[in-house]
């Protein structure tokens, strides 16, 4: 993670090679494992939990499945931005399981007819991990940034990705605007005009809108900006890899929930229904939930949440997207062409 930008182009290449190699190796590698049949499960995921899946959860599930059935499971993993992954799956990428950052992206797949069962029927309404939107600041917080309104102070430079290309950016705007609407900032409760003013003041300080949340935090790591609006897990993972930045939890912020669903049509086609269901169920087990927490993600499982409560600071006023009326409503009022966000951006066009 040290010289990250240079290697931004590498993962896709490596992935391509890995897929090629995996594809080539398929025939030769099935033979030397005569202990049982080998099955292949394809996971289409967003990029954030890549390490958690690749290093911890997938190996654990492979063990678990072998013990239970004697079968070997080989995983084919693809990691893309959440929206791009959803579109890839709709466009014909035959993932058996989709692990995405936004409910709306799972809905995209469901609307295309590829998810036929109610994917919210699981124990946590189809969600496997959580995080919150926080403010990353430089070591020692030299600019004294504590809460949303501090980001609007003149002279600051703030990072947040482009809402058109990043689901994460939408979470950020919802967190800030929602916090203001709830009276979590100096704006009084329910005062949408003040909330819009605050959003404008913050966006005015944004000089770079990267295409994704990852690119945004990578730029922050390179020394760009005084603060970055980002996910808590991005900061925690960054700190694990030696970054010195810190984060501030705003008084009011939004709870991010990340869904996982079996892509029924593909699982059916590959004869993987049982395997895919088992994998999704495995993600809710304490073992998998704990693995997610080591990569900075908050668990959905209550027991594990109590175990790790020291790692994750409590939030005074934690709200969800449902408090903003749910995603369709939030997209309509905030991100539509005549929505709050576009209005604020248009009002800033004169700024040099």
């Amino acid at each position: 993670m040290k010289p990250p930008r240079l290697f931004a182009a590498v993962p896709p290449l490596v992935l391509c090679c890995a897929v090629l190699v995996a594809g080539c190796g398929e025939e030769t590698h099935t033979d030397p494992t005569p202990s049982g049949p080998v099955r292949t499960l394809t996971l289409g995921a967003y990029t954030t939990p890549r390490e958690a899946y690749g290093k911890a959860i997938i190996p654990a599930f492979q063990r678990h499945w072998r013990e239970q059935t004697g079968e070997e499971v080989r995983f084919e993993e693809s990691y893309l931005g959440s929206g791009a992954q959803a579109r890839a799956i709709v466009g014909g990428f035959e993932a058996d399981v989709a692990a995405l950052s936004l409910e709306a992206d799972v809905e995209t797949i469901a609307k295309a007819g590829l998810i036929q069962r109610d994917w919210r029927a699981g124990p946590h309404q189809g969600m496997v991990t959580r995080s919150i939107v926080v403010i990353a600041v430089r070591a020692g917080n030299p600019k004294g940034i504590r809460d949303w309104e501090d980001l609007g102070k003149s002279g600051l430079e703030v990072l947040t990705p482009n809402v058109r290309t990043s689901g994460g950016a939408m979470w950020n705007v919802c967190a800030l605007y929602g916090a203001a609407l709830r009276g979590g900032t100096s704006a009084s409760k329910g005062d949408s005009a003040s909330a819009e003013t605050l959003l404008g003041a913050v966006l005015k300080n944004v000089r770079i809108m990267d295409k994704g949340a990852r690119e945004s935090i990578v730029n922050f790591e390179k020394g760009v900006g005084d603060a970055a609006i980002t996910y808590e897990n991005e900061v925690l993972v960054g700190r694990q890899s030696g970054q010195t930045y810190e984060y501030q939890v705003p008084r009011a912020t939004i709870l991010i929930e990340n869904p996982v669903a079996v892509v029924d049509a593909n699982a059916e086609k590959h004869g993987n229904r049982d395997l895919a269901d088992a994998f999704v169920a495995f993600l809710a087990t304490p073992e998998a939930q704990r693995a997610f927490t080591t990569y900075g993600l908050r668990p959905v499982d209550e027991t594990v949440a109590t175990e790790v409560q020291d790692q994750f600071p409590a939030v005074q006023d934690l709200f969800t997207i449902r408090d903003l009326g749910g995603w369709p409503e939030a997209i309509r009022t905030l991100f539509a062409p005549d929505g709050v966000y576009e209005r604020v951006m248009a009002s800033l066009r004169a700024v040099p």
Partner: protein
Amino acid sequence: MSRPTEIADVRRGRLALRSGVLIYAAVLVVLPLGALVQHGLVDGLAGLWRAATAPVAAQAILLTLWTATLMAVVNAFMGTLTAWALVRYEFTGRGLLSALVDLPFAIPTLVTGVMLVILLGPQSPLGGWLTALGVPVIFAPLAIVVALLFITVPFVVRAVEPVLLEQDPAEEEAARTLGAGTWTVFWRVLLPPLLPAILSGTIRSFARALGELGSVIVVSGNIPYRTLTAPIHIFGEIESGQPGGAAAVSVVLLALALLLAFAARGIERISGVHHA
């Protein structure tokens, strides 16, 4: 085998080749273009016009046009100079320079963007110095011009080079013998035959710049109305599930590129220059 059948065979072969190439071009180029245009017209011409003239889109197209124009002007000048140096002078490192000219085509443009951020970012000495001077380059429109300059280096150089190679030194010598000064020789003898090549190379670099995404998206900052170019706008529209808006701006860029391609062809035909 008798001669008439041989000729018939050759004719058939030519016909097959020509139709094969035409079909290839149709499948590879015309079909996708057609699909795009059709997609852009889902809401009719009025819808396309609306999407392409929405303030964000219009501003993005404008930014793309002026940054590409600035790049093209610099490129015309520096590209010609580079070609001149490569053809007219023997110097150490000439082979290296020639190889360097082609390098930008071989480097993924995304990598170009990454390099520029490393070089000019606020943490680098050069970037810090520029910021201190009050000329922030990276994450500002200037960064777009720099990225475009990098990725289009070969166009003008490689267009002008063959013409320079063909120039007969006798013309220049004759002019001098007749008493023309250095400037007169340059303006009246050397430059005129180069102009078509400079123009066509410049136009091609401009057309290439219109569509550049990979490097620009990394260096520009992508702020709507300020540093968001047309290709990034298109990318955003696709990513946010609005293919109609994406197709509309794409059609505008496509129309411009087509016009420019024809202009470059026209200039080449008139002057008999062939692009390398």
